[in-house]
């Protein structure tokens, strides 16, 4: 894994945390349970022993106390049994070291004639106090058993368990991290593979090494990749076939078209001499040949774009001069009004001419026979706006305007092939530009050609030597 594809690693962290939590809770519960069990056992053992001792001693007590309470205390002291004798006169301990205050609750239980116990703390010592009435008297006898050892053992056990639990948790964290990484490794690889497929490397495959769920997943990923690759190849092949067909058709049409165009041009030169009944058909023939020619030209151009065979020839261009020349060359001086500032840029002169002429031609055809062209620079981009006051284009047609063979009104027999705007757009894109359209029904339409400006000079394009007057020796 040379490169972490998912830098956050959140899933890995979450997996690790979950692993640690499970291990921590399980081992914690186990440790706590065993601690409680041991504690319970030790304490009840101690209590049972204490109870047996207390019962036995209580049976002996009446005999001993009959002589004197001191006798009782002395006897127990000798036997190392710590007692506290509570008589009407007060509390007398057999060993002043074991003289805890007797809790009131215990005394009232003992007072009612029961054998009762309570664990108390005297200073820092853990004591078990069991009390009972000395048979045949109202005197209470309390036996005090130290439980320090038990408590020390339990504390030790608790510490051992705590440390053990901590070690388990840390180990679980490490193991969990390792496991999470190993588990998620295939995911990281898969996402890397998916990304490289997205980048177009369709031959990307995942290694199927293990016979587990990830192995199966990798295999199905590979199946998907194969299917995708095959599908894309088929699509590309189909597209290439279609493009070849378009290209072949337009090529095959060219030869008869060349003959037709030549013949039509000869007819055109001799229209005057034709008898009236053939003259009109001849005129129509000439027109239709021109239409066919435009269509074939544009088909060929489109197929060149599709083949990626179009190249651009960059030159210094004075945009304003180019547009004015294009208008003059087509005899549109009366219909097209050009305004704006001089813009110098580096671009392909012929393609620019083609785009602008197409936009103007369109505007004149659909925009009521007149249009306005304005030229300028807006930030980093030069623009050419072609505005007409025609009937406008309904907004639902706007997104398809640059589609091939799209005609807003199919019933209307326009002179265009339906490829003009598509070609203009291809040309604009080739020049690093774009064409935008704005239109409102009833108001008019505005096409805006946007071009990158690499070189923007105030005024004219690079200085050109003055045109010289005439051919002279």
């Amino acid at each position: 894994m040379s490169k972490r594809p998912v830098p956050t690693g959140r899933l890995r962290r979450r997996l690790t945390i979950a692993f640690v939590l499970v291990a921590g809770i399980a081992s914690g519960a186990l440790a706590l349970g065993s601690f409680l069990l041991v504690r319970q056992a030790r304490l009840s053992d101690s209590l049972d022993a204490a109870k047996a001792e207390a019962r036995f001693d209580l049976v002996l007590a009446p005999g001993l106390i009959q002589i004197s309470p001191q006798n009782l205390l002395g006897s127990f002291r000798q036997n190392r049994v710590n007692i506290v004798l509570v008589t009407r006169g007060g509390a007398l301990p057999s060993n002043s070291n074991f003289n805890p205050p007797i809790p009131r609750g215990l005394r009232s239980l003992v007072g009612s004639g029961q054998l009762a116990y309570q664990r108390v703390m005297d200073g820092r010592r853990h004591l078990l106090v069991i009390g009972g009435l000395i048979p045949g008297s109202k005197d209470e006898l309390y036996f005090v058993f130290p439980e320090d050892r038990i408590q020390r053992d339990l504390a030790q056990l608790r510490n051992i368990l705590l440390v053990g639990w901590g070690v388990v948790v840390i180990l679980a964290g490490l193991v969990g991290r390792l496991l999470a990484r190993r588990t998620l490794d295939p995911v990281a690889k898969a996402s890397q593979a998916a990304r490289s497929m997205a980048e177009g490397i369709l031959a990307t495959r995942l290694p199927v090494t293990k016979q587990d769920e990830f192995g199966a997943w990798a295999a199905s990923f590979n199946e998907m990749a194969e299917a995708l690759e095959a599908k894309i190849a088929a699509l590309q092949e189909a597209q290439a076939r279609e493009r070849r067909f378009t290209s072949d058709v337009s090529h095959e049409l060219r030869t008869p078209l060349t003959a037709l165009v030549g013949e039509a041009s000869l007819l055109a030169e001799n229209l005057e001499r034709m008898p009236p009944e053939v003259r009109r058909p001849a005129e129509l023939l000439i027109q239709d040949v021109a239409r066919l020619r435009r269509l074939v030209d544009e088909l060929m151009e489109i197929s060149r774009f599709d083949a990626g065979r179009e190249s651009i020839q960059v030159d210094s261009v004075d945009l304003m001069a180019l547009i004015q020349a294009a208008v003059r060359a087509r005899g549109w001086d009366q219909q097209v009004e050009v305004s704006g500032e001089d813009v110098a840029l580096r671009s392909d002169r012929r393609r620019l001419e083609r785009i602008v002429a197409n936009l103007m031609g369109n505007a004149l055809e659909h925009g009521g026979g007149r249009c306005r062209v304005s030229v300028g620079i807006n930030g980093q981009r030069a623009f050419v706006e072609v505005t007409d006051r025609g009937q406008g284009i309904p907004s639902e047609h706007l997104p398809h305007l640059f589609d091939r063979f799209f005609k807003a009104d199919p019933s209307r027999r326009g002179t265009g092939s339906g490829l003009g705007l598509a070609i203009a757009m291809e040309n604009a894109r080739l020049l690093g530009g774009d064409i935008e359209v704005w239109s409102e029904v009833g108001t008019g339409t505005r096409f805006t050609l946007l071009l990158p400006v690499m070189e923007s000079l105030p005024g004219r394009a690079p200085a050109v030597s003055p045109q010289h007057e005439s051919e002279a020796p």
Partner: protein
Amino acid sequence: MDERVLLVEDDASIREVAAMGLKQAGFRVTTAVDGRDGLMRALQEPVDVVILDVMLPSLDGFEVCREIRKQSRVPILMLTARTDTVDVVVGLESGADDYVTKPFEMPELVARVRAVLRRSSSQPEETTVSVGGLELDPASFIATKDGRELSLTATEFRLLLEMARRPGQVFTREMLLDRVWNYDYLGDSRLVDVAIQRLRAKVEDDPAHPRVITTVRGVGYRLERR
């Protein structure tokens, strides 16, 4: 008039209509159906201009053009398919003077034929132009450099003459297209570039580092005064 045009075109309809158009315009037309026949006629018959289709059986238009150029500087007009911009450049590099893209209208073809003929017709009233070691005689169409004769086609001669008349001046491609090729509007400026390259190959001592015809970046070309 009465200039002789050799039309080499394999498609019968195009051949017939082009021949008819040229005849109506006052030319004398002979035709050839394939490259070999065309080459033979171009070299053996008196011809003032050759119109060559690119796609020809037996010997393609470029080959025919190169073969003709080895022996003759008769003006050559290529008929190319617009689809292949490569055609244009290859055609010009093989020595054609100009090209017309298919499909074309008759007046267009006739105009281009007249333009190449005008370039190759001598103008006896003009005097010899000399710049540096170059001498150009418009009457005889002979160009020499340091006394050595250069074999230039009519178009190359015209191009050199145009620039030699005003040495030191920068000519834009458009100006040269207009003056040499008689394109009044938006011709293909590659015509100029290719012709300049061919011209340099004949005029310069080291065509890779031109010193006679220099490029003015972004503007055009200039013939140095020296």
